[in-house]
């Protein structure tokens, strides 16, 4: 791929002669313009032919572009119905993820289960989901801590710098994951179309296409992405590619709940199809969950209940 391009025949035909030194043209050698006029006339294309030829080329290009539009193979951001299996039709699903921050006890089992289920590296800094503890102290200051992404639970008091020893006014745990935004910045910035949205709204990363540029990692306002480190457990051998929560795509496409939802001991994470799941329908209708940071304008599809959205 990186081998030098062989010299073309034209290059071979003109050996590397020293470039002649540029000098001012000798006025005597110049041919008067009037003598050249018949030759110019001879070489010219009529205006009609010129315009006609240009029109034909323009028309051909425009036609090709129009036809390519009809086949959205190269369109990266349009959700398309990629057939998954005979048992799973993504276009019929309205997956909804609801997180109850009033219920979360900060045990961190979700983080552990996610690593186990999705072959996420063991180190805390690589994680598809994490738990934050938001603490407001009596002096009005707010602190957020997430030691080891919450995977080992939480110590009695906030580990955020400056929080030690202060009296706590209010506090809550906030489990976080990919919001599977409807207006996702990550899919927009990907220069190679490696990250895309399926018809069920889940945003996935095609590791074969990903070039590891990290644009999506910094574009995500929710910090939901990371780059897979090289190591013995690198999924599929694709080190350096972007990875993120898939809502356990292999589970939901088999009718199972995501691992974090399955494992949560207090039901702080709820997941289901808003079209058919009575539990989710009731949650949406009666408790009216809200997205975190709607001002980002990405239309997140993970909705929150409890103090995270009541106080913020």
């Amino acid at each position: 791929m990186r081998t030098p391009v062989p010299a073309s025949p034209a290059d071979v035909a003109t050996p590397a002669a020293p470039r002649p030194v540029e000098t001012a043209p000798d006025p005597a050698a110049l041919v008067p313009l009037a003598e050249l006029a018949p030759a110019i006339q001879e070489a010219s294309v009529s205006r009609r032919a010129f315009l006609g030829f240009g029109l034909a080329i323009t028309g051909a290009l425009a036609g090709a572009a129009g036809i390519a539009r009809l086949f959205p193979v190269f369109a990266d951001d349009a959700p398309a119905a990629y057939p998954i299996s005979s048992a799973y039709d993504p276009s019929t699903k309205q997956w909804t993820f609801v997180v109850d921050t009033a219920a979360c006890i900060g045990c961190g089992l979700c983080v552990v289960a996610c690593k186990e289920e999705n072959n996420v590296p063991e180190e805390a800094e690589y994680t598809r989901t994490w738990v934050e503890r938001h603490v407001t102290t009596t002096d009005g200051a707010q602190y957020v801590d997430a030691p080891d992404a919450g995977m080992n639970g939480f110590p009695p008091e906030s580990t955020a710098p400056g929080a030690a020893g202060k009296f706590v006014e209010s506090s809550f745990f906030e489990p976080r994951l990919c919001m599977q935004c409807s207006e996702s910045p990550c899919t927009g910035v990907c220069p190679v179309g490696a990250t895309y949205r399926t018809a069920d709204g889940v945003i996935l990363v095609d590791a074969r296409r990903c070039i590891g540029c990290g644009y999506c990692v910094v574009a995500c306002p929710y910090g939901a992405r990371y780059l897979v480190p090289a190591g013995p457990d690198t999924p599929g051998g694709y080190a350096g590619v972007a990875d993120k929560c898939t809502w356990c795509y292999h589970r939901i496409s088999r009718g199972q709940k995501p691992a974090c939802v399955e494992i949560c001991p207090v039901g702080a994470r709820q997941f289901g199809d808003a079209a058919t799941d009575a539990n989710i329908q009731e949650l949406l209708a009666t408790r009216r969950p809200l997205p975190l940071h709607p001002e980002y304008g990405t239309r997140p599809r993970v909705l929150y209940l409890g103090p995270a959205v009541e106080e913020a």
Partner: protein
Amino acid sequence: MTQLRAFWASVRPRTRRGALIAVSSIVAGAAVLSIALTVAASMAWSPYVTFDLDRASNPRAWAANELSFAGSTTCAECHAPQAVKLRANPHAGVACESCHGALAEHAASSPAPGSARLALAAATNEDCLRCHTAADAKPATLRTIDPWQHFKPVCLECHDPHTTDATRPPVVRHPLDDLPPCVTCHGPEGFKARNLRHPDATTDDAACLECHAPNRGPARDDD
């Protein structure tokens, strides 16, 4: 240049109709070429790309990943008694695999009942304390403890995790004729100020350890 001009003169359309035909055939040629390339690309073959352009294969690949967690519903298919017991108690919302770990492989192997004992990782203190250690932001409805003030260091010696029933710590009733000195327990700051957890090793609480072995709970009258 003269040759080019001669070529152009020989092929250039002479009439309006000829020009129309020429333009149409160029557009049609471009159309056919772009359809051919598009179809080739969608069939995961193209002279211009060496990787698989077939988008559908990627969500299929994600969907084909192996499960690690079987799900409580799957567990209950075989382990109904335990599931029923669990669902009738405060731990009803806790999944089997929250404590027992990921068991999809076990579920997929469908062992015959009684054929082989599943080597479950015994629930450890960490499994319990992960949830039940007191910490800021824990909901008030969750029962929490301070592990350093709790009665015994091994949760499962008293607590049944499936039913959440607990053996209450016995009331310490020292026989009057064998009473240790009051100050053994009741220091200047009161009994509650003492570490309720029994010492693991011989400490200056030697007075206690004369009667009570470490980690064994209080002695009974008949010991």
